[in-house]
C-alpha cells in the first residue's frame, strides 16, 4: 500500500521547548518577510526595494524612528494589559473600545479645564487626563467583567461588541457634547491648548513622554506578573479555577482584576493618543491599535518586555504600510496583510513549542 502521507510528522515533545518558545516569533517574522517579498514580486515590485521601504526607511533618521516609537506606545500599553488577561485566561479582545473610552474621558477632562483664562497648570491637567483615561478604560472593561461575572456572558463577544459601541459613542461626543463650538460644525472637538499636550521627548519628533511612562509600566508589569503574589493568584485563578479555590484564591477576583488592568492600560493608551499626537477628539482616534495589540501580546510571548519588541515590529508594519502606499503605490492595507501574516505564521510556529518535526519512520 502506497504511503501518501507527508514524510514529515509532528511528534509531541516530552515537555514544551523553551528555546522554541522564543525562537518561534523570530521564525514567524522571517517567514512573514519571505512571503512578503513573494507578495511584492507577484505585485510586480522589486521585493528588495519594497522590503527596504517597509523595514529600513522607517528607521532612517531620528524623526522616522520617533514615529515608529510613537506608535509603539498605544500598542505596547494595550498589549501589557492583554498579556495579563490572557495569562489569566480572560479573553478580552475589546482593548480598542477601552482605548477609545480612555480617549473620550481624557479628552473630556482636558476640555473641562481648557477654558480661556484658566489658571491650572498643564502637567496637573495631563495627570488628571491620564487618570481619567484609565478610569474610562476600566469602566468600559467593567461592563465585560460584570456580564461575565453575573451572567457568565462570553467575554470575547461582549468585549468585541463593546468596541463598536465605543466607536459610536466617540462619534456621538464629537458630534454633540464635545463638539468644537467654533469648528464650523465639523465633527471634532477643539484643538487642545499646547500646554495641555504631552511634552515631546525628542526634539524634531512627535515622540512624547508617554513613551517613558510606557517603559515604567513595562517594568512594573514584569514585576507584577513574575514576582507579585497578586499576579500569581491571577494566573492560577484564570488557568485552574479549582486549584485557585483550593488555595483560597478567588477566581472572580482574577476576572475582575485582569479586566481592570487591561482596561486601565488601554484607557491610558487612549489618553496618550488624544493628548499626544492627535491633540483633540476626532471621530476616529485609533486605527485598530487595540486589535493589533493582541498580535503584539502573542508575539511578545505574553511577556511585558516581549511586548516592547512585538510593539516595535507591529509599529514598523503600520508605518511601512503607509509608506508602501505613498512610495510604491500599493494600498496601505498591505500593512494589515503583514500583520495578519505574522500572526498566522506565529500560530503555526507555536506548534513546534509542544511538538517537533520528525521524518516519518519507514513503514515496517
Amino acid at each position, binding site marked *: 500500500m502506497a504511503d501518501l502521507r507527508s514524510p514529515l510528522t509532528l511528534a509531541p515533545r*516530552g515537555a514544551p521547548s523553551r528555546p522554541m518558545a522564543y525562537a518561534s516569533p523570530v521564525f514567524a517574522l522571517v517567514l512573514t518577510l519571505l512571503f512578503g517579498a513573494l507578495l511584492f514580486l507577484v505585485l510586480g515590485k522589486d521585493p528588495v526595494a519594497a522590503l527596504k521601504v517597509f523595514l529600513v526607511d522607517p528607521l532612517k533618521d531620528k524623526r522616522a524612528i520617533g514615529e515608529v516609537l510613537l506608535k509603539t506606545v498605544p500598542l505596547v500599553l494595550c498589549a501589557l494589559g492583554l498579556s495579563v488577561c490572557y495569562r489569566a485566561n480572560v479573553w478580552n479582545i475589546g482593548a480598542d473600545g477601552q482605548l477609545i473610552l480612555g480617549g473620550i474621558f481624557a479628552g473630556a477632562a482636558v476640555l473641562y479645564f481648557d477654558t480661556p483664562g484658566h489658571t491650572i497648570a498643564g502637567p496637573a491637567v495631563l495627570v488628571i487626563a491620564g487618570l481619567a483615561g484609565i478610569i474610562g478604560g476600566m469602566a468600559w472593561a467593567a461592563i465585560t467583567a460584570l456580564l461575565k461575572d453575573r451572567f457568565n456572558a462570553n467575554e470575547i463577544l461582549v468585549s468585541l461588541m463593546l468596541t463598536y459601541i465605543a466607536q459610536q459613542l466617540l462619534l456621538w461626543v464629537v458630534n454633540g457634547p464635545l463638539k468644537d463650538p467654533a469648528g464650523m460644525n465639523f465633527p471634532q472637538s477643539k484643538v487642545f491648548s499646547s500646554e495641555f499636550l504631552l511634552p515631546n521627548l525628542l526634539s524634531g519628533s512627535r515622540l512624547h513622554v508617554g513613551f517613558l511612562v510606557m517603559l515604567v509600566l513595562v517594568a512594573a508589569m514584569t514585576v507584577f506578573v513574575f*514576582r507579585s503574589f497578586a499576579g*500569581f493568584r491571577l494566573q492560577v485563578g484564570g488557568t*485552574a479555577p479549582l*486549584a485557585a479555590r*483550593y*488555595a*483560597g484564591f478567588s477566581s472572580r477576583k482574577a476576572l475582575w482584576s485582569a479586566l481592570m488592568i487591561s482596561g486601565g492600560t488601554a484607557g491610558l493608551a487612549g489618553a496618550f493618543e488624544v493628548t499626544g499626537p492627535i491633540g483633540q477628539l476626532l471621530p476616529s482616534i485609533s486605527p485598530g491599535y487595540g486589535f493589533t495589540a493582541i498580535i503584539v501580546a502573542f508575539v511578545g510571548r505574553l511577556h511585558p518586555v516581549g511586548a516592547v519588541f512585538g510593539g516595535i515590529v507591529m509599529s514598523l508594519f503600520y508605518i511601512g504600510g503607509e509608506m508602501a502606499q505613498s512610495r510604491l503605490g500599493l494600498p496601505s492595507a498591505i500593512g494589515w496583510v503583514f500583520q495578519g501574516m505574522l500572526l498566522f505564521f506565529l500560530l503555526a510556529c507555536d506548534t513546534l513549542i509542544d511538538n517537533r518535526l520528525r521524518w516519518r519512520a519507514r513503514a515496517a
Partner: protein
Amino acid sequence: MTLQLPPRLALAHITKRYPGVTANDDVSLSVAPGEIHAVLGENGAGKSTLMKIIFGAVRPDAGEVHFNGAPVAIASPHDARNLGIAMVFQHFSLFDTLTVTENIALGLPPKEVGGMKQLAERIRATAARYGLPLEPNRHVHTLSVGERQRVEIVRALLARPQLLILDEPTSVLTPQAVETLFVTLRQLAEEGTSILYISHKLDEIRALCHHATVMRMGRVTGVCDPRAESAASLSRLMIGGEPPREARVTTERGPVRLAVRDLSVPRAHAFATELQQIALDVHAGEIVGIAGVSGNGQQELLAALSGEDPRGAAGSVQIDHQPVGRLDAAARRRVGLAFVPEERLGRGAVPGMSLSANTLLSHQTPPYVRGGMVSPKAAEGLAAGIINRFRVKASGPAALARSLSGGNLQKFIVGREIESGPKVLIVAQPTWGVDVGAAAQIHNEILALKATGCAVLVVSEELDELFGLCDRLHVMAKGHLSPSIPVESATREQVGLWMSGLWEGGPASERPHAATEGASHG
C-alpha cells in the same frame, strides 16, 4: 491444536518509545476468546501505553497486532471499536457539560444511538444489570470521580465488545460492588468476551483472572496463572523485590484537633449531595478514616472541611477549638489545616505551572510570600526539598506539574502539605492510581505525621487502605456520616453494609436493593 480458535488478541514484539523513555520494550501477549487476562504492573510499567496501542490511541514503533488470527493495523480508537474492542480508561474522557446519555451517544456510531430517550433507557437497564447505578440525565460535571468511571464502564458495555479492556476499574467500588462486577465479568467471559484486566491489586487478580502478564519497566517479566501464585510471588515479579513494609505506629491520642459539629450544607447544584448533621472528631496523634462509595457526599464534606465551600455554620467546623466554618481555604491553612484533594491536576496543582510555583498554593506566608511579593528562591528551595525528601521523579523544581506521572505528582502534593507542618491533615484518596512503592511511602509519611501529633483524616474508597492506616473508621452514605468504629473491631462486611446506609439511625430507611437481611443489628 487444529481445532483451537485463534487467540482473540495477540501482540508480538510491541515496542514504543517516547522522548526519554521506552514505554514498551518487545512486549508480547496473547488472550484467548472468553479469557480474563490480567496485565499486572506498577505505575509506569507500561501497562497503559500497551492498552492505548491495542485501542489505537497510540501507534507502536515496532511489533504486530493480530485480532482473531488476522493481522490488523489499529490506527484509531474508531478502528478498535469497529473490531469490537472497548476500553474503560483510567483517566476519563467525558465532556463535563454534557449529560451521561449525551456523552455515551458521542462514543457510539450514529446508527447505534437511536433516540436519546431509548439510549437513556438502555443505559439505565445496562447500568442496573451490572450493579452500577447511574442517572442518564445528569450532567457529568456533577458526578464524582467514581460515578464518572461508571459512565465509562457502561459506555464500554453498551457496545457489546469482543474484547473489553478495563484499566484499574475497581478502585471506586464497594467490596460488594466489586463482587457484583466480578460476577458480571465472569458472565461476559463465559459468553465469549475476552477481558484484559489491568490492575495492581493482587487479590483481585488472583480471584478473577485466568492468566496474568506481569510487566516491569516496559518489559514482560512473567506470564503465569495467578490462581496458582501467591500474592508475594506476584508482587516479586511486579516490583522485582519484596514489597516495602509499612510500619504500624501506636501513638498516644491527644486532645481533639478537628471537631465537626452538626455540619449541614445544602446542595450546591441539583445533583450534589446534601450534607446532613455531620459530626466527627479527630484527635491529635490519630488517623480517622471515612469509607464509602463515591458520590455519597465525600466531595461535599471535603470541600466543606477544606474551606473550598465555606457555607457551613461558623462553629460547625473547628480547628483547635477555633470556629473556621466560614473561612476560605487560605484562612483555614493559616490556622493549621493542610489538605490533599482527590484531583491532583487542576485542583491540587496547576498543570501548566512549575513545581516550585505550585508550592505557593499552600505556602502563602514568609519566607515564600513576603509583603505581597513571591520569593522564587524560597519556593524553589521548598520544591527541591520536597522532591528530594519524597523521592519525586521530576527533572527538578522547574518541571511542570503536568509533566509528572500521577503517582509522582501525588507524592509531591502530599509532601507539600506535610511540609507545612499542619495540625490537621485531610487526605482524599491518598494512593489512587499510585504504585505499590509510592503508596507505601505515602502511608509511611502519614503515619510519621501522626506520630508527631497531627490529626489526620483520610477519605478513601479503598477499604484495604483504610483498614491498614486508620485507628477509627466512619462510613459515609447519602450525605450522612455513621458513628465511628475502632478498626480492630470493624469487619469488611459491616463496613460494606454501612456503605449502603444501614447503620442504626442511618439514612437507609428506603431499603436499597442490596442485601439487607440482618443489617440493622450490626
